[in-house]
């Protein structure tokens, strides 16, 4: 059976999704994704000419509300969930690669 997705494509998709795969995982996911995309392609049997796509089934359209902030004053509780913080701010590593100093 011709493959529907190859390892290069899976690597590309993983990088778009900000995931990293080692060689074993790449093989494993490529086989599985290929099989699942094969399932996706069964949809080609269906004639959808002129059929409108459905993206949501809610009966609510363009509901407006006042833009009012609530649940204020939880700075400390919010910050407690941050992996690292300093002086009331969330701390992140430098954007420049430190390994290239």
């Amino acid at each position, binding site marked *: 059976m011709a493959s529907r*997705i190859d390892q290069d*494509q*899976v690597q590309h*998709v*993983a990088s*778009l*999704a*900000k*995931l*990293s795969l080692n060689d074993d995982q790449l093989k494993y*996911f490529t086989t*599985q*994704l290929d*099989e*699942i*995309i094969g*399932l*996706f392609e*069964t*949809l*080609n*049997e*269906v004639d*959808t000419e002129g*059929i*409108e*796509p*459905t*993206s*949501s*089934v*809610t*009966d*609510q359209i363009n*509901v407006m*509300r006042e833009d009012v902030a609530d*649940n204020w004053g*939880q700075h400390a*509780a*919010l910050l*407690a*969930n*941050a*992996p*690292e913080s300093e002086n009331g701010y*969330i701390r*992140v*590593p*430098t*954007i*420049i*690669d*430190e*390994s290239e100093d």
Partner: protein
Amino acid sequence: MNYFEKDLTTLHDDLVAKRITVTDLVKATFDNIATTDPDLKAFLALNKDAALKKAAEMDEKGIDADNVLAGIPMAIKDNIVTNGLTTTAASKMLENFVPIYDATVVKTLNSKGIINVGKTNMDEFAMGGSTENSAFHDTKNAWDYTRVPGGSSGGSAAAVASGEVIAALGSDTGGSIRQPASFNGIVGMKPTYGRISRWGLIAFASSLDEIGPMTRTVKDNAILLSAIAGHDDHDLTTSTKEVPDFAADLNAQTSVKGMKIGLPKEFLGEGVDQDVKDAILAAADKYRELGATVDEVSLPHNKYGVAAYYIIASSEASSNLQRFDGIRYGHRSKDVKNLEDVYVNSRTEGFGDEVKRRIMLGTFSLSAGFYDAYFKKAAQVRTLIINDFQAVLKDHDFIMGPVAPTPAFKIGEEISDPMTMYMNDILTIPVNLAGLPGMSIPAGFAKGMPVGMQLIGRPFDEATLYKAGYVFEQATDFHKQTPKQGGNN
């Protein structure tokens, strides 16, 4: 507390008559959990101190005789955020995440006097049908500890079925309330899309996700749905339609006489166990006996539901799960040299394989050059699936069929085969794609394991499902059978 001898109404009577205090009820519930959960493993976290504190306050204040939910202990699926109580969605990514607000459903239940006893296990981010995708541990089926409880709301289903609690909240994106309800012999309702606020439900696939109640009886389920349904300014996909008092119509006069029921031939096709088919055909005969008509109908696009769903749900998931970037909350990798590493390594370490699989499937389906062939095609097929249901429900009051093709399978049996796992959802997924209400109720047994029947209704017509479910329940005794302690049925 033996919850098998109680329902919400009789428990409420006991509380009002002071035959039991809220504190004793809450303590007894934690005793149930202490006895059963070391093996069953339905819970990820217990809320003991806060629960006992609230119980004491309620005892002090007295029970409102008009509020059937006052002082009732309940469990909450761990993808529904609870203020101050760790909420993980069964993911390493959120292992230490403590929400600073309550989901609307939790806020509503709290205000009605429900006591949250703890958070239940699930497949990571609700992706899976066996609870084996939890990053923390497996949960057992209440009827057989060597079998899965189903999923993704497996912890909630097992907790209710084993008698640890009388009710729990689950969520259902492709069958995650109905399938575990079926596997554990309880009642699970996935309401109409827009019936219940999703504010505070950790998003998986926003056009499909729905919260719903899981209980042992139809009436308890109806009571809870009426309590948590309705419009919410924080979720603008919620409907402004009035919410009926669903339980008010469930009594000795409730009948299915003259109702027209559709039984889709595709629901009894290839891949569905003979025992499951037999249970559903017997249920159809029971409905005929009770004065309804049941005829064979067709949902020709049903078989494309799984493919369309895994494109749509995965695409929405890949977008929703972008927020987990290791910056503001959630897991952050220690192994980082720059900002890009924070994103990539945190996500790679924090997500399990099933979540990665779905993120990649979604990213692929939405990526340049593939969008029309996959995402748009799936969205068009979704329209055809909706049209199929509309055609049948135009002249049928509801649709009946199995929930899942098989009863609960063995732990470890299917986890390494995602395709088989995905195909298990073939009978529940189309209901999410169409946004319809779907309910699982106990309808028999196959070699000692529960078999659920699915009732599917018109949009916002949960009332008919509850009536039909109630009448069936009163005419049968499947819901009265209970698992033996230790799951050795």
